[in-house]
């Protein structure tokens, strides 16, 4: 079998807390993430507010040759460092691994986020991605005070707004053609303004004129991801994203959901707590066996159509180390996972070509 299995890890705080309900996907679950948890991490809770904690985790994931890591964020009441800033802080100290922070569409400005992800792509020289999430959280809405979001807010509206948001991110990334900067001494022109484009987006929730103030990022379009547990969100993913995190519970599920997200890179979420007995609840499948058993499962689900996996360690850094030091060698022995990085960008790892600019003549 060709080494075509993709592998990533979710770096959520000090590990997944699976005793709480899953936290998003645009569905109306508000999530105090600090309930009684599964995590018995060696790292105390304060460590996750230090840069060293994040640098060590991402370096560990890079030693395991993973495609990328994700950083959770939700603008809610759980104390977290800003995910884009954490990713950027880590970027200069790593060299190959993709960095995918979460951004929340409902409250932040797409203009700011577009340039932030473009800048992360510059800081990491082509390793940025972004996971975009809708937010049905009333608590997060109160933090901004500009709109009310309640259990009655239609999911369809939140998803449509998120789709608009991604459309604006993408248009802004393309708003500079790749060769817009000309530095033409003879004519005194620094840029060729004919290669800069107004995006002129006008939607139901916001409008954005453009162009971006940040030139087109190294990857052209950093990959966009969406987490989806349900059909309406699958539809958002098909409309907006390059890859989707899905939550099947069996190989059969992998096939069924795979059909719904066809055309996207399908990364199956698996919560992983090696050797645990206290299996928690989660929207995602929870795995508590040995690394060898997980390798069997991943190979089986890969054969059923999963392009890759996002493993969500129950406890950081412990379960991450088992992934990188035990699971990865097993997958390599089976010939399904890379033995060295063969690309330098996130798109390169994922096998995605650099896209043409929609505005270029």
């Amino acid at each position: 079998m060709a080494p075509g299995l993709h592998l990533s890890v979710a770096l959520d705080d000090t590990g997944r807390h699976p005793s709480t309900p899953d936290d998003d996907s645009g569905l109306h679950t508000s999530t105090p993430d600090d309930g009684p948890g599964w995590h018995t991490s060696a790292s105390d809770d304060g460590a996750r507010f230090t840069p060293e904690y994040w640098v060590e985790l991402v370096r560990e994931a890079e030693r395991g040759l993973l495609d990328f890591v994700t950083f959770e964020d939700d603008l809610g009441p759980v104390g977290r460092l800003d995910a884009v800033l954490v990713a950027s802080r880590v970027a200069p100290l790593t060299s190959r691994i993709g960095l995918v922070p979460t951004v929340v569409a409902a409250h932040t400005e797409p203009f700011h986020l577009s340039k932030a992800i473009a800048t992360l792509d510059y800081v990491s020289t082509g390793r940025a991605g972004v996971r975009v999430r809708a937010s049905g959280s009333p608590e997060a809405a109160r933090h901004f005070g500009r709109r009310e979001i309640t259990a009655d807010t239609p999911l369809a509206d939140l998803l449509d707004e998120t789709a608009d948001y991604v459309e604006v991110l993408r248009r802004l990334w393309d708003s500079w053609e790749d060769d817009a900067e000309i530095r033409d001494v003879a004519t005194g022109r620094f840029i060729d303004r004919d290669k800069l484009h107004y995006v002129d987006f006008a939607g139901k929730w916001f409008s954005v004129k453009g162009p971006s103030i940040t030139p087109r990022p190294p990857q052209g379009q950093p990959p966009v991801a969406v987490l989806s547990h349900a059909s309406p969100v699958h539809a958002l993913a098909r409309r907006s994203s390059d890859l989707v995190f899905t939550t099947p519970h069996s190989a059969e599920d992998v096939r069924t959901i795979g059909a719904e997200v066809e055309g996207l890179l399908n990364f199956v979420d698996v919560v992983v707590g090696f050797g645990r007995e206290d299996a928690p609840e989660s929207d995602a499948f929870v795995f508590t066996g040995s690394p060898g058993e997980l390798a069997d499962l991943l190979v089986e689900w890969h054969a059923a159509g999963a392009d890759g996996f996002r493993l969500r360690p129950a406890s950081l850094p412990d379960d991450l180390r088992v992934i990188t030091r035990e699971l990865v060698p097993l997958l390599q022995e089976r010939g399904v996972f890379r033995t060295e990085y063969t690309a330098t960008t996130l798109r390169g790892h994922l096998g995605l070509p650099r896209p043409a600019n929609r505005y270029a003549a």
Partner: protein
Amino acid sequence: MKQIHLAAHFPGVNNTTVWSDPQAGSHIEFSSFVHFAQTAERAKFDFFFLAEGLRLREQNGLIYDLDVVGRPDTFTVLAGLAAVTTHLGLAGTINSTFNEPFEVARQFVSLDHLSGGRAAWNVVTSWDAFTGENFRRGGFLPEEQRYERAKRFLDAATTLFDSWRDGGEFAYRDEHFDIAGKFDLPRSPQGRPIVLQAGDSEEGREFAAAKADAIFSRHATLADGQAFYADVKRRLAKYGRTPDQLKVLPAATFVLGDSDAEAQERAHEVRRQQVSGQTAIKFLEQLWNRDLSEYDPDGPLPDVDPVVGENTIARGRASVRQHRDPLATAREWRELAAAKKLSIRELIIEKTARQTFIGTPSSVATQINDLVQADASDGFILVPHVTPGGFDVFADTVVPLLQERGVFRADYTGPTLRSHLFGEESL
């Protein structure tokens, strides 16, 4: 002897940057930021400073194409720089009009944690609908409310910075913001990020006296600097603050040479590169508020008068707003040009000059120190004309001379920006 504070301003989109210089590199690639910041840290500067722009400037209805164009995102590049520096303060300009307090407070507290206490916020305001077209909020703010909103924004953010005392619980309500909830982050290493302020109006000065740790001014010459310095320091008492709690840091450029004469010659050449004939015409159009593209930059000033009223020729450019009485300014410029026999380009070179330290390293060190000791400032925010290597020679030649004279630190004495500015690691 007063200790001098120095900051390194990464050039933004302005005509200071001589992009045609053979040594000019990228102003976007991260390696440029690394080079620039690491040089500033090698020179023991207080902080790195990044300006911001939220819409590309336009003139005559077209995107302005003569200067450097394009910037990174402020927070993202500062967080990246935190990884490749250890002591340098990281100051970012963040607009209080097109952001929300919860998000900005969270980003600054994050940056302070991720940098070990080196974050600073240059609070600016905007109200124009032109910039607002890029944002959900749009151009909603009446001009007279901009400082009001900035003050309330900073009050709301400060409530969030301090909410660790209450376990992160917060509630803030006024005519601009109504927010509540939980801001559950540990106390920022500096207590709060350093606050910088750059406005020069009466309201701006009062805002700085009430709220800021440092003020970024335009007044860098002796008499002008002393007047500004005395004015803002005098305002502090009514807010229960002492004069050393607000640092006055004017913007300045510099040109070095092996002799004073060589430096003068080089400075003249730099000014010619910064203000091309076409650039001079564009500057003139901003005052005249009309298309002057048919005029010869090497010829005399136009004999037509400026168009009075709303400036429609240039958008997204702060300097346009400074021409309060264009007819009077035009008259003054004509008189100056006539008296000195200046062409359009020569006049613009003269009128747009900012304070520049020109000379040998020894002479520049003396000029800087003399102004600080004479209470014209507490130091300077320096912007070089070449990116990213513009501070290399300054770090190697001027800084050691200031250190020898005992007026600038030989090494950092604390880890945080607050310790560089005030000697205290945190609030």
